[in-house]
């Protein structure tokens, strides 16, 4: 028997656990991917909006500053100085801290401060050197009517330079107005940004506003963004993911202010932006663990309820395999397992019944075998010789026991030959033959003729069977002194007498011993039997048989038939041999036709030959 290596219970458990685990994992991976994509899109969107909003605000503020100072500049161009009215107007303007007017010789690049306005008495002194350092560098690059914004780098002030083209072509001198201003609250936005850091960079990608540790650094050195190429910002706005030197990924959005080459950049660590994703993943994992744990517990109970029934069935089948067919399975469920258990119980009951039946059949077969053995003792030796009389016979029952019987015996100077066939065949018929044999033993001692012998035998058979079973019977008596053969027949197949002949005999030479005939044995209690006498001389032969002989069939069920039967008797007789060879030859021809087919009736035949040597 194959061993139960991996219990069905654990298989169900694994199955019930693995299915949700695999399904949920697949769902989680898919959901995380979608969520990540969606989140990045959201960050891109919000970050882009932020930079554009701030860029717009800066642009608005710069435009406001320029508009406010435009009147002062125009007044200066007219009067070549800041008059008191302009000075008053300057003081009322909130964002501008310092306003300077320089005259620059465009050929020599020398500059000269003409006049300035300031709100704070120290601001000019504090920033004059820085301003002029920047101016000395920028006068080469600033174009006519172009406004360029710079930061001082160390504090919150910006300066914007506006170049006024020369009035006189001969005098190649140009005015440069420098406005020093603060961005106010907007500066705080850049300096105190949280997870999302904001930078204001100039046209060369230098950081002008942001956390103090990155001021004046090129943004490209912090994060390798694609929109900055050769220290120039290539597009107006956009969003991209870029990596820093430490391989950390950032989501970068940028928007150009549109004035002074300024660009607002926002930067957020991608992992930080997607931190919600991590939270979702962790919470999902916790949820999944709980779910799998619950599933496992439920599966344990579910598999137990299923496998308990199957375990009962398994145990029962083991007992059955060990031969215990009385085992019953008590399962009350009404599902397939319950039906299986019911069928199992019915099957074991049926096996038990069949076993009993088989045992009973074996017992009966055993008894039949015993009966067969006993019945075999009823038959005489197949070959016998009494002086000049040779006897040879053949008997084969259709089943274990047969209804045919033949016999011979010597009583004084007479030899008696008996052959009978009970109704049907099998055990009931065999019992009748047994009765006939018993009666024959007694009748032999009575020294009576064949007719009287049949009369006594009829009494016996009738008393035994009460008309339910009958027997055809033929008794012949050979007188060794007179060579007379006296016979009586109780409706049995008439034996054939074949007279001595030196020539080959033909069908017409077969003499059926049917001159007398009487009712079958057992048909009537008072039946009377006649007998008659023929001569049985040297080289004469009598062939006795039962009706099962011509009824032998071949494998196709075709009977041998009387014609072939008669032909075989003639063929065997014409061999001019002894009785034993006659029987052997006859049996050989019959069996060749039969080819091992089952008999439809018992087969008995024997010959008696009178042979004087």
């Amino acid at each position, binding site marked *: 028997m194959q061993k139960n290596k991996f219990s069905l219970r654990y298989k169900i458990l694994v199955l019930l656990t693995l299915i949700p685990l695999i399904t949920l994992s697949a769902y989680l991976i898919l959901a995380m991917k979608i969520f990540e994509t969606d989140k990045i899109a959201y960050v891109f969107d919000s970050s882009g909006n932020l930079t554009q909003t701030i860029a717009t605000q800066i642009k608005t503020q710069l435009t406001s500053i320029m508009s406010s100072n435009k009147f002062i500049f125009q007044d200066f161009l007219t009067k070549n100085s800041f008059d008191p009215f302009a000075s008053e107007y300057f003081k009322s303007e909130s964002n501008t801290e310092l306003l300077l007017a320089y005259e620059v010789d465009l050929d020599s690049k020398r500059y000269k401060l003409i006049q300035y306005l300031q709100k704070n008495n120290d601001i000019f002194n504090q920033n004059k050197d820085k301003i002029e350092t920047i101016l000395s560098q920028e006068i080469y690059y600033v174009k006519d009517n172009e406004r360029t914004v710079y930061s001082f780098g160390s504090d919150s002030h910006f300066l914007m330079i506006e170049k006024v083209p020369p009035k006189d072509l001969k005098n190649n001198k140009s005015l440069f107005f420098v406005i020093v201003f603060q961005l106010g609250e907007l500066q705080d936005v850049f300096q105190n940004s949280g997870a999302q850091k904001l930078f204001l960079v100039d046209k060369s990608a230098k950081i002008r506003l942001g956390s103090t540790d990155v001021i004046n650094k090129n943004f490209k050195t912090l994060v390798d963004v694609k929109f900055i190429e050769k220290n120039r910002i290539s597009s107006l706005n956009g969003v991209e993911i870029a990596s820093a030197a430490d391989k950390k990924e950032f989501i970068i959005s940028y928007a150009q202010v549109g004035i002074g080459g300024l660009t607002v950049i926002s930067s957020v660590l991608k992992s930080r932006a997607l931190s919600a994703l991590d939270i979702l993943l962790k919470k999902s994992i916790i949820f999944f663990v709980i779910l799998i744990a619950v599933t496992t517990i439920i599966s344990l109970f579910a598999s137990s309820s299923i496998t308990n029934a199957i375990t009962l069935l398994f145990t029962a089948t083991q007992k059955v395999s060990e031969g215990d067919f009385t085992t019953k399975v008590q399962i009350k469920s009404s599902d397939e397992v319950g039906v299986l258990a019911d069928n199992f119980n019915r099957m074991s009951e049926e096996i038990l019944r069949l076993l009993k039946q088989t045992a009973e059949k074996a017992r009966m077969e055993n008894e039949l075998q015993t009966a067969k053995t006993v019945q075999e003792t009823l038959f005489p030796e197949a070959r016998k010789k009494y002086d000049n009389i040779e006897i040879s016979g053949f008997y084969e029952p259709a089943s274990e026991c047969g209804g045919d019987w033949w016999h011979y015996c010597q009583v004084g100077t007479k030899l008696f030959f008996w052959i009978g066939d009970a109704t049907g065949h099998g055990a009931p018929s065999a019992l009748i033959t047994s009765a006939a044999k018993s009666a024959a033993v007694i009748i032999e001692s009575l020294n009576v003729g064949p007719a009287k012998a049949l009369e006594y035998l009829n009494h016996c058979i009738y008393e035994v069977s009460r008309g339910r079973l009958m027997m055809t019977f033929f008794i012949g008596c050979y007188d060794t002194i007179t060579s007379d053969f006296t016979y009586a027949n109780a*409706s049995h197949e008439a034996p054939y007498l074949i007279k001595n002949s030196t020539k080959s005999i033909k069908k017409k030479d077969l003499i059926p011993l049917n001159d007398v005939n009487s009712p079958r044995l057992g048909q009537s209690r008072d039946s009377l039997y006649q007998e008659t006498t023929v001569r049985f001389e040297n080289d004469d032969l009598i062939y006795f048989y039962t009706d099962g002989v011509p009824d032998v069939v071949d494998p196709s069920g075709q009977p041998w038939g009387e014609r072939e039967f008669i032909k075989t008797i003639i063929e065997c007789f014409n061999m001019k041999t002894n009785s034993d060879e006659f029987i052997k030859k006859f049996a050989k021809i019959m069996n060749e036709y039969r080819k091992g087919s089952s008999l439809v009736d018992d087969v008995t035949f024997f010959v008696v030959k009178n042979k004087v040597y």
Partner: protein
Amino acid sequence: MAKFEFKKENSNATEKIAMSGIIDEDVDFNILKLSDTGNIEIDLKNLKSINSCGIREWIKWLSSSKNSQINFVNCPKIIVDQINMVDGFLPTNAIVSSFFVPYYNEENGTEKNILFRLGHEYSQNGLNSPAKVTDDSGAEMEMDVIESKYFKFIKK
């Protein structure tokens, strides 16, 4: 195996029964009750076989009609064999009006059943067999029976 069947009809005060199939222990002759008087004609042409148990039932059945005149017609060889062998198979109140005699030609392997009729091919005085029986090819056929055995009942 052919199942036992019968047809029964009355014609001109004669009860006519036609049988076919096999007669064995399963045949219940109680459903085929015979009248105890008058003429009964039993046509056995299509009877295929009869076994020893069938013979017992047959004799019991016919013995229920001892006062009628039973006339067997078209008796096949299997019935003639039983008539000759089994005492009582042909009751004393019955006669065989016609029966078949098998003929064969060994060379051609041809077989033929010739109907012998009472008063024509046979009578109680003996046989008046056809002088010559031939098969379809004109070859002469011989009787496929042992005459002294097969025609034994005629002299009864």
